[in-house]
């Protein structure tokens, strides 16, 4: 009896893992490889790794060179971003809050700018002192929030019946998608100042946001266009027959529906943007990866590459996974709606 049960369980196990001889072989090799990797990693973690570069610099990783006594400001901002993310995933019962969530999201930008730059009673801090995770988040949030409306606009322009509008936006979108991001960022950091009149200066963080916005909006435009093409034509017809005019159809029918359809693609854009802010470390901003590189340049921590990279990778991974989970949840909710 007992034996039979074991046999049955074993059979089940075999059914799952060992389907045929090729699979047998593969499974054994994989299990072996995983075992070796674990052993090696464990050995390294216990014996060889030195985490001083990470542990002594946590505040630097989060806030960069932001003045020490002012670090509560980026902290508050990041916390309020987290809160609003949470509220978007698990919407509260109060209807007024749910209705104003979009406004709250948009409000995050002025709030962040106020908290980081200061002014109006709190000490001003120049953007050159922004760094670490704070800067990474600032770049991501601002660029994506600016790129979304521009991307929507471009998508509609590309569908426009006016030849000139259509051509200009197509050229813009296609050429932006053809060039590498680093070239656009290079343009933002080094060349934009050459195109500005004398005396007009935009600081480097804003130039980076500008370059990211230019780049991402072209990609968002294509995602939205895909969403627009997926909306059945009958939706527009029924909106027309209700007497809605052109702008009202765009506002109440096309934009919300295309956003809903494009949501998975849009999340991928935001996740990609978040990761790509790391390119700014090549172009002289000390965001999360940049601060890691600066810390590695400190003679005290030389050679702790693996530890710093693993630490950075896990920070990026955790945040990106959270974003992805959030998007999945939203998608599920919107599917009914």
């Amino acid at each position: 009896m007992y034996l039979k049960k074991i046999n049955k369980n074993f059979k089940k196990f075999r059914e799952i893992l060992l389907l045929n001889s090729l699979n047998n072989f593969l499974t054994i090799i994989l299990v072996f490889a995983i075992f070796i990797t674990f052993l090696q990693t464990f050995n390294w973690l216990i014996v060889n790794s030195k985490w001083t570069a990470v542990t002594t610099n946590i505040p630097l990783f989060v806030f960069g060179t932001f003045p020490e006594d002012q670090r509560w400001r980026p902290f508050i901002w990041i916390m309020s971003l987290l809160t609003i993310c949470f509220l978007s995933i698990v919407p509260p019962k109060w209807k007024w809050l749910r209705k104003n969530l979009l406004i709250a999201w948009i409000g995050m930008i002025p709030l962040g700018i106020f908290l980081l730059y200061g002014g109006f009673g709190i000490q001003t801090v120049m953007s050159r002192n922004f760094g670490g995770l704070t800067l990474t988040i600032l770049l991501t949030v601002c660029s994506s929030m600016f790129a979304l409306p521009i991307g929507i606009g471009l998508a509609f322009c590309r569908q426009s019946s006016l030849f000139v509008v259509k051509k200009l936006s197509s050229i813009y979108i296609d050429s932006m998608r053809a060039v590498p991001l680093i070239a656009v960022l290079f343009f933002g950091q080094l060349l934009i100042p050459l195109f500005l009149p004398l005396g007009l200066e935009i600081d480097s963080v804003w130039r980076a946001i500008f370059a990211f916005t230019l780049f991402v909006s072209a990609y968002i435009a294509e995602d939205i266009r895909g969403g627009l093409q997926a909306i059945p034509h009958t939706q527009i017809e029924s909106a027309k027959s209700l007497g809605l005019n052109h702008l009202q159809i765009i506002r109440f029918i096309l934009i919300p529906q295309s956003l809903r359809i494009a949501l998975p693609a849009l999340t991928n854009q935001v996740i990609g943007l978040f990761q790509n802010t790391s390119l700014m470390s090549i172009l002289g901003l000390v965001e999360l990866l940049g601060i890691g590189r600066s810390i590695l340049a400190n003679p005290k921590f030389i050679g702790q590459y693996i530890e710093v990279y693993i630490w950075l990778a896990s920070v990026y991974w955790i945040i990106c996974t959270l974003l992805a989970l959030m998007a999945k949840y939203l998608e599920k909710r919107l599917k009914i709606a």
Partner: protein
Amino acid sequence: MMRYKRFFLQLIIILLFIGLVGILINNLIINLIRTDLGFNFYWLLKPASFALSEHALPFSPSDSYAWALLIGWINSLKVILFSLIFSTILGIIIGLSRTSKNILIKKISSFYITFIRQTPLLLQLMFWYFVGFLGLKNKFINFSNILKINTQGIEFFGLSLTPEFSALFIGLSVFTSAFIGEVIRGGIISVEKGQWESFRSLGLSERDGLIKVIIPQALPAIIPGLTSQYLNLAKNSTLAIAIGYSDIYAINDTIINQTGRAIECFIILLLTFLILNLSITNLMEKINKLINKKQIYIN
């Protein structure tokens, strides 16, 4: 009436656009004069006076900047081509693994995809280079002179690759393969369930069914996704600069540093990438057409 209105609207937009571009160019010219930078391409013919460790064609520092750019361009193409092939192979394996029935394989491949996609490529490249290759130290892998991997790079059947190239090549391939894997999986999923059932009921083996029934039908859905991943791969190859590989962007960077010709170098960079993009897109379109033609015959 309507047509006039539309015409004038477009005219106004064009004028506004030209005006904006004009203002920007005017600013640029003022700035170029003010900073004595000027604008010309004569410097392309001057000697580069920097050496390159990696060059497919002969190169010495007394060769011109233009020649250096060409070398950089060849280096870029080399890494793009290598990674393109390798990432496709890896991507197909990953994509098929995700549809596998073996739960272990399925889980590992899905973990691989999420992990690779959820960390920045730049960080991965640095990891491959500084930890992966340079961290090898004296412990190197040596399979009886066929494949050697150590701090000096990869040696494979006498073909030796520098660590910079190897790290970039592996980093790009691994990163892109995760995306290609998703594209392939998406393509396979897009084939109707009935097709699977029907080839199974015909007694075809799982592998034959996949190769002869499912994949040909999945291809039209796969090709566009694959094209955009190849384009991304080409664009991402510019991150070479972070790990010391002399690709087109890195050489542009060096030249800007030496000559201060940021605008001219930027224009060259943009043009080369437009050409590269167009050629990849055209090639993939031809492949697409070929496949579609074949499909018609099958049908």
